[in-house]
C-alpha cells in the first residue's frame, strides 16, 4: 500500500494559504468568544481548540485528496505463436535431404507437409509449458488454432489434422512474411511471447520487408525462430529451356542443336541427351551438367530431305517439379544444298597442294579449282570441274565463295573482276590470299578500282614482290582481341583449348606487306613480333551483302603441326562457311536475337538484345538504325529501337513493356547499307516470348534461406533448414518457459470515504454541541 495525494503537488501552496486562512478565522473566532471563553475551564478550551484544529486539518487534508495505491500480482503461461506459411510455394516438394521429409510418406513431401510435421512436433512439447497459437499467413494472417494446454506429457496432444483443419493445403497467392510477423506481434501485444516460430520457405512476394519486421520483433524482444523449407536451389527439375537450331539444314551436313539445359537435380549431374529424328534415335550424348544453366550441343547428319521432326530428350528424375519439360521438339527443313566454291590459284604452291584436299574434305563444299598456270588441256581439279573462269555475272553467281589465291592478274579480265565484285556485293563471299608469285600490288595495278574496293586492307600498289629477298627471320602471328572472339578463328569450342591450339602454331617467315586497314574492316591476326609488329595478317570486312576475307599469309600449312590437318581443315571450314553463310542460309547468321526471359507478366519490361557474332557486321552497321518489331498474337506490332551498347560491347539492346497476354514474336531484319534490295535482308532473325498472368510464387522456387537465417540472427532466434531440421526438438527446449507475471495497481482515496466523512461530521457536530453546551453560542 502506498499513500499518495491525488490532488497533486500543485495544491500544497493552496492548502497552506487555506490553513493560514483558517488560523486567522479561528483567531478571529476566539477573539469574539474571548469573554465567554474565560469562564471555561482550561481543559474545555483545550478540547474546543483540539476539535477545531482537527476539523480544520481534516478539511485541508480532504482538499489534498489523500489516497493509497494497492498492487495485485497475477501469473500466466507464456505464448508461442507458430506462424505457418500457407502460400502455394509451400506446396512445392521439399528437399530430399531434409530428414523430416524422408520420414514422411512419398505423398506427403511438400514443404507444407514438412511444416505441419514441425508444428506438430513443436506443439507437443510446447503445449506443456506454453500457450501455443497456430497462425497461418499468405497475403493476410489468421489464427488457425489455439492449442489447449496439457498438464502432463501423457495427456493426448492435438493432431496435425485438427491443427490445420482451417488450412489443409497451401493456397495463398502471396508470401507476406514481414506482414505476418508484424500481425502476430500486434495480436499478441498483451502476452508474453517467449519466441515466435516462423515456418516458411522465406520467399517473400509482398508486404513489408522481412528485415523491417525483424527489427520490430527485435524491439519487442521477441526472438523469431526461423524454420526454412526448400533449399537454396530451385526445385528439382531438369528442363530444356531453349533449343537453337537452324530452321533449314543441308542434307549430309552437320545439323547442330544448341540447347540451354537447366539443371536443378544435383551438381554435377551425369546424364544423357538423346536426339531422335522422326522417332528414331540418331545420336546420344553423355553429359556432365553443372547446377543451373548449361549450354550443350548435339548434332546429327540428316540423310533424308523434307521437314523432319527432331526430338531432344533428357531422362526424367524422381521428384521433378515438372516432368514434361525434359524434352523439346523442333522441326527442321532438310534441303539438298552445297556451298559452291571456286578456287582460282595462280600457281601450285605448297599451300595450294594442302588447300585443295582440305576443301574437298568438306562435305558441304562443292569445289571447282582453276589453276591458272595449268596446261591448256589440263583437266582442272575439284568436285565440279570447270574449263574456264566464269564469263558473266550469272556464271559468277553460281558460286557462293571465290578464293583468289595469289592470282595472275593478267589471266583474269577486268570484266571478270567486275562480275566477281557484283557476286560479292549480292551476298557472295571472297577470300583473297596473297602470295609471293604475283602479289596484290600487281593485282591492284591491273584491276585497280574493284580490287581496292573489295579488299579490307590498303595495299601499296607499287610494292611489287621482291623475289631476290631472303626471308630467314621468323615472326609470330597473334590473334587480335577481335580475332580471339571471332568464329573463323575458333579451332576449338573451348576457349582455353582454343588458346592452347593457337599457342602451338609455329613461327612464320613471310607475309604480304599491308599499308593499313579500312575503317570498317576488322583485323583478326597480326604480327606478334619482329619488324612490322602489329601488321595485319588477316582481316575481314562486310562488303554490302557479302563479305571479304584477306589473308596475307600463304603458308597456313605450318598450322598442320601438331594436329595434322585437323586445325588446318577446321580453319578453312570456318572461313568458307563464314563467307558463304549468306548464300547457304539466305541471310547472315552472325547475329543472335534474344529476350532476357521467355515469359513475362503483363507490365513487365522485356529486354531485347541483338548480339553480333561478327565484329565486321557490327562495323558495317555502324551509324545505322537497328529496329526490332514485336508482333502480338492479334497482329498488333510495335517497333522497338535497338541501341548500341554504350560500353562498346557487341550488341544492341532495347526494351518493350509487355502489355497484352499471349505469344509475342520479336523480329530483327536489316538491309545492308547500300544493299541491292530491301527484300533481301542482311540478317533476319526472330525470337518469341510469352506474356501471361503468373503467380509470383512460381517465379523462384528456391527457398530464401539467407533471408530466414538473417531474420533469426537479427532477432536472436534459432535457424533451421533442411540440413539441421532433424534437431527441431531442440528448438522447443530452447524456448524459455518463464511465466508471464501480470501486476495490477489500484488507488483508494482516503478522504472520499464514509469513515472520513462521519469522523468529520462527528467532530464538527461535537464542536458545535460543546459550544452549545458550554454556552458559547
Amino acid at each position, binding site marked *: 500500500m502506498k499513500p499518495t495525494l491525488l490532488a497533486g503537488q500543485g495544491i500544497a501552496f493552496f492548502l497552506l494559504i487555506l490553513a493560514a486562512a483558517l488560523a486567522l478565522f479561528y483567531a478571529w473566532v476566539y477573539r469574539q468568544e474571548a469573554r465567554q471563553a474565560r469562564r471555561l475551564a482550561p481543559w474545555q478550551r483545550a478540547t474546543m481548540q483540539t476539535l477545531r484544529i482537527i476539523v480544520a486539518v481534516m478539511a485541508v487534508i480532504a482538499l489534498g485528496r489523500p489516497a493509497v495505491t494497492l498492487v495485485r500480482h497475477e501469473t500466466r503461461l507464456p505464448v508461442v505463436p507458430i506462424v505457418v506459411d500457407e502460400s502455394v510455394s509451400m506446396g512445392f516438394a521439399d528437399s530430399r535431404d531434409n530428414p523430416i521429409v524422408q520420414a514422411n510418406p512419398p505423398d506427403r513431401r511438400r514443404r507444407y507437409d514438412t511444416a505441419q510435421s514441425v508444428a506438430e512436433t513443436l506443439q507437443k512439447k510446447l503445449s506443456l509449458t506454453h500457450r501455443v497459437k497456430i497462425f497461418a499467413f499468405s497475403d493476410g494472417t489468421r489464427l488457425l488454432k489455439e492449442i489447449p494446454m496439457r498438464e502432463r506429457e501423457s495427456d493426448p496432444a492435438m493432431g496435425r489434422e485438427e491443427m490445420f483443419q482451417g488450412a489443409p493445403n497451401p493456397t495463398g497467392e502471396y508470401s507476406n512474411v514481414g506482414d505476418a510477423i508484424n500481425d502476430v506481434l500486434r495480436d499478441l501485444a498483451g502476452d508474453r511471447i517467449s519466441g515466435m516460430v516462423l515456418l516458411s520457405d522465406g520467399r517473400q512476394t509482398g508486404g513489408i520487408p522481412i528485415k523491417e519486421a525483424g527489427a520490430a520483433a527485435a524491439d519487442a524482444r521477441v526472438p523469431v525462430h526461423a524454420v526454412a523449407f526448400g533449399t537454396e536451389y530451385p526445385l528439382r527439375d531438369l528442363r530444356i529451356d531453349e533449343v537453337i537450331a537452324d530452321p533449314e539444314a543441308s542434307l549430309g551436313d552437320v545439323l547442330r542443336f544448341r540447347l540451354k539445359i537447366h539443371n536443378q537435380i544435383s551438381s554435377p549431374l551425369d546424364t544423357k541427351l538423346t536426339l531422335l529424328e522422326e522417332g528414331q534415335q540418331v545420336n546420344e550424348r553423355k553429359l556432365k551438367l553443372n547446377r543451373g544453366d548449361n549450354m550443350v550441343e*548435339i548434332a546429327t547428319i540428316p540423310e533424308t530431305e523434307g521437314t523432319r521432326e527432331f526430338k531432344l530428350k533428357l531422362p526424367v528424375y524422381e521428384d521433378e517439379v515438372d516432368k514434361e519439360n525434359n524434352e523439346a521438339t523442333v522441326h527442321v527443313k532438310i534441303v539438298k544444298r552445297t556451298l559452291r566454291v571456286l578456287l582460282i590459284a595462280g*600457281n601450285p604452291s*605448297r599451300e595450294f*597442294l594442302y588447300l585443295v584436299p582440305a576443301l574437298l574434305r568438306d*562435305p558441304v563444299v562443292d569445289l571447282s579449282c582453276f589453276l591458272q598456270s595449268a596446261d591448256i588441256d589440263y583437266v582442272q581439279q575439284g568436285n565440279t570441274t570447270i574449263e574456264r573462269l566464269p564469263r558473266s555475272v550469272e556464271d559468277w553467281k553460281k558460286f557462293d565463295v571465290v578464293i583468289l589465291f595469289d592470282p595472275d592478274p593478267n589471266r583474269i579480265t577486268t570484266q571478270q573482276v567486275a562480275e566477281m565484285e557484283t557476286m560479292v556485293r549480292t551476298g557472295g563471299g571472297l577470300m583473297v590470299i596473297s602470295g609471293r608469285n604475283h602479289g596484290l600490288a600487281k593485282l591492284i595495278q591491273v584491276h585497280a578500282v574493284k580490287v581496292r574496293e573489295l579488299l579490307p586492307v590498303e595495299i601499296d600498289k607499287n610494292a611489287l614482290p621482291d623475289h631476290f629477298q631472303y626471308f630467314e627471320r621468323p615472326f609470330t602471328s597473334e590473334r587480335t582481341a577481335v580475332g580471339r572472339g571471332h568464329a573463323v578463328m575458333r579451332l576449338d569450342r*573451348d576457349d582455353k*583449348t582454343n588458346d592452347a591450339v593457337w599457342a602451338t602454331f609455329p613461327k612464320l617467315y613471310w607475309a604480304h606487306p599491308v599499308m593499313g586497314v579500312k575503317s570498317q574492316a576488322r583485323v583478326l591476326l597480326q604480327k606478334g613480333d619482329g619488324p612490322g609488329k602489329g601488321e595485319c595478317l588477316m582481316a575481314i570486312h562486310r562488303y554490302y551483302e557479302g563479305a571479304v576475307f584477306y589473308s596475307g599469309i600463304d603458308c597456313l600449312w605450318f598450322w598442320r603441326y*601438331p594436329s595434322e590437318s*585437323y586445325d588446318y581443315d577446321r580453319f578453312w571450314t570456318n572461313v568458307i562457311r563464314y563467307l558463304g553463310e549468306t548464300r547457304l542460309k539466305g541471310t547472315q547468321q552472325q547475329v543472335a536475337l534474344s529476350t532476357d526471359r521467355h515469359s513475362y507478366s503483363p507490365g513487365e519490361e522485356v529486354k531485347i538484345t541483338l548480339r553480333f557474332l561478327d565484329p565486321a557486321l557490327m562495323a558495317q552497321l555502324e551509324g545505322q538504325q537497328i529496329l526490332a518489331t514485336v508482333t502480338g498474337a492479334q497482329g498488333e506490332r510495335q517497333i522497338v529501337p535497338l541501341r548500341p551498347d554504350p560500353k562498346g560491347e557487341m550488341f544492341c539492346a532495347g526494351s518493350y513493356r509487355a502489355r497484352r497476354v499471349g505469344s509475342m514474336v520479336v523480329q530483327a531484319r536489316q538491309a545492308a547499307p547500300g544493299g541491292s534490295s530491301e527484300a533481301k535482308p542482311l540478317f533476319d532473325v526472330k525470337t518469341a516470348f510469352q506474356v501471361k498472368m503468373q503467380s509470383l510464387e512460381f517465379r523462384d522456387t528456391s527457398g530464401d534461406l539467407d533471408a530466414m537465417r538473417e531474420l533469426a540472427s537479427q532477432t536472436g532466434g534459432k535457424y533451421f533448414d533442411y540440413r539441421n531440421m532433424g534437431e527441431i526438438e531442440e528448438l522447443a527446449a530452447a524456448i524459455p518457459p518463464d511465466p508471464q507475471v501480470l501486476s495490477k495497481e489500484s488507488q483508494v482515496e482516503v478522504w472520499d470515504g464514509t469513515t472520513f466523512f462521519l469522523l468529520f461530521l462527528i467532530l464538527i457536530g461535537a464542536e458545535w454541541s460543546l459550544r452549545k453546551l458550554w454556552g458559547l453560542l
Partner: protein
Amino acid sequence: MERKSNMRGTKSVRPGSGTFVRGAARLFAVLVAALLVASARTGVPEAGEAKKAPAKEKDAPGGEPKKETPKKETPKKDAPPRPEGGKEAPKGEDAKKTDEAEKLLAEKEKKRGPSFPGIDPAFLVLPRRGERPNTAAQILTPQVREMTEKALDYLAKTQGPDGGWGDMQFKPTNTGVTALACLAFMAEGSRPRVGRFGKAVDRGLEFILKNVKKGSGIIAGAGSNELGPMYEHALSTLALLMASGDMPWKSELHEVLGNAVDSIKKSQKLDGGWRYAMTNQGDSDMSVTANVLWVLRTAKKCGFTVPKDAVEKGVKYVEKCALPDGTFRYRYWGLHASPSLGGTGIIALCNDGSLDHPLIGPARDRIAYDYQRYTIEDLKARRYFVYGAFYASLGMYSCGDEYFVPWFRKAVAVLATMQRKDGEFFDEYDNTVYPTAMAAMILQVPLGYLPIYER
C-alpha cells in the same frame, strides 16, 4: 642410285633390240635372282624366311608372316593434347570437349573412306579426323628432333659450291641426291629463299635447273647413274614440282617441268612401267615405276597434263609385280620379293586413285609385320634400309596413325642406331647424303609440311 647393280639386288640388264637379246637378258636375270636368293638365305633375313629369322623380338608373334597381324597402336584418348616445345594444352575436361559435330562428320567420312573426287583426279582425299590428334607431338620426341637437326646440319654442311649434293657413288654432284636434300629441307618447312634453309633449297634447286638438258627435258647431270638417269630425273622433277609454286623468279620453271613430264611419258615402256633408261625400250622395274607414278600424280596436282592411260598402265605393271602375301617383286617375272619394295608398292597403287586397292592392305600389313617382328639389328642389316624405310614411310603414313605410329617408332629406333656423330646416315656403299636426306624426311613426317606425304 647404284652404278653397277640396281637397288633391288638383281643385275641390271641393258635393253636389247631383238627378241633373242631380251630373252637372254631375262634368263640372266632369273639366274642372278636365284643366286641372290641363295645368298639371302645365309645373310639378311628376307620376307619369305620369316620362320628362319635368327633373332626375334620378345613380343614378336611367331608363325607364318602373312597370318600375323600387327599390333595396332592407337593413341590414348585422354592423352594430354598438343604438347609442343614444353607447352601443354589444358588436360582432362578440355581434351574431352572435342566438337561432336566434327566427330560425326569424321565417322561418316570414315565409313565412306578415301575419295578421289573429280573427272581426272589428282588429289587423294582421306577422311577428316574426328578428334584433334596429338600423335604427331607424341612421336616427334626430343630425340627425333635432335636426330633431325643433326641430319639437316649435315646436309647443309655437305652442299657443294655449285649448290648440288653428291654422294660416295654419285660424285661430284648429282641431281637426284640434290633433289632429295632439297626435299629434306622442304620437309622442315623451308621454301626457296624462305625459312631456315631457304638459301640451301634455293641453291639446290638452281643446281637442278642448271642440269636440265635442253631438247630432251631430262633433268640429270654429270653424276647420274650410268644405267640411266630416270631416278635422278624423277626425283629432280618431284623436287621442282614441290617448289614450283614458290619460285616466281624462275619463269621457265613451268616449261622445264612440262618437258620433264613429257619425257617421262615418252619413256613409258611397253609393259607399262619405267626403268633407268629414259627410252620406251626394254623392261621395267617396280622401283622406278613406282617413283615415276608418284611424280606423275604430283605433276597432275600441279597442273600438268598426265594421260590417264599412262598411269593405268603403270599401276597394272605394279600389280603384276605384287605377290599375294603383300610383297613385291622387283620385276614382274622375278622369283623373289624384295622387302624394300613394300612402300613403293603402296604409293604406286595409291596413284591409281584409291587407298582401298586390294593389294594395299596386304602390303601395309606386311611392312607393319616386318617392323614389328624383326629386331633393330635385323632391320639395320637390310640392304638399302633407309631407302626402303623412306618409301615405307610414305605408304604407312597414308594408311593412318594406327599403322604409321608403331612403324615410325621402330624406324626411329633403327635410325637412331645408324646415325653417325656428324649426323649422317649411311648405306652399305657408304653413301651418306641421300640416306641422310631420306632419313631426315622420315624423321620429319610428323611435322606434315611436305605434301608428298598424303592424308
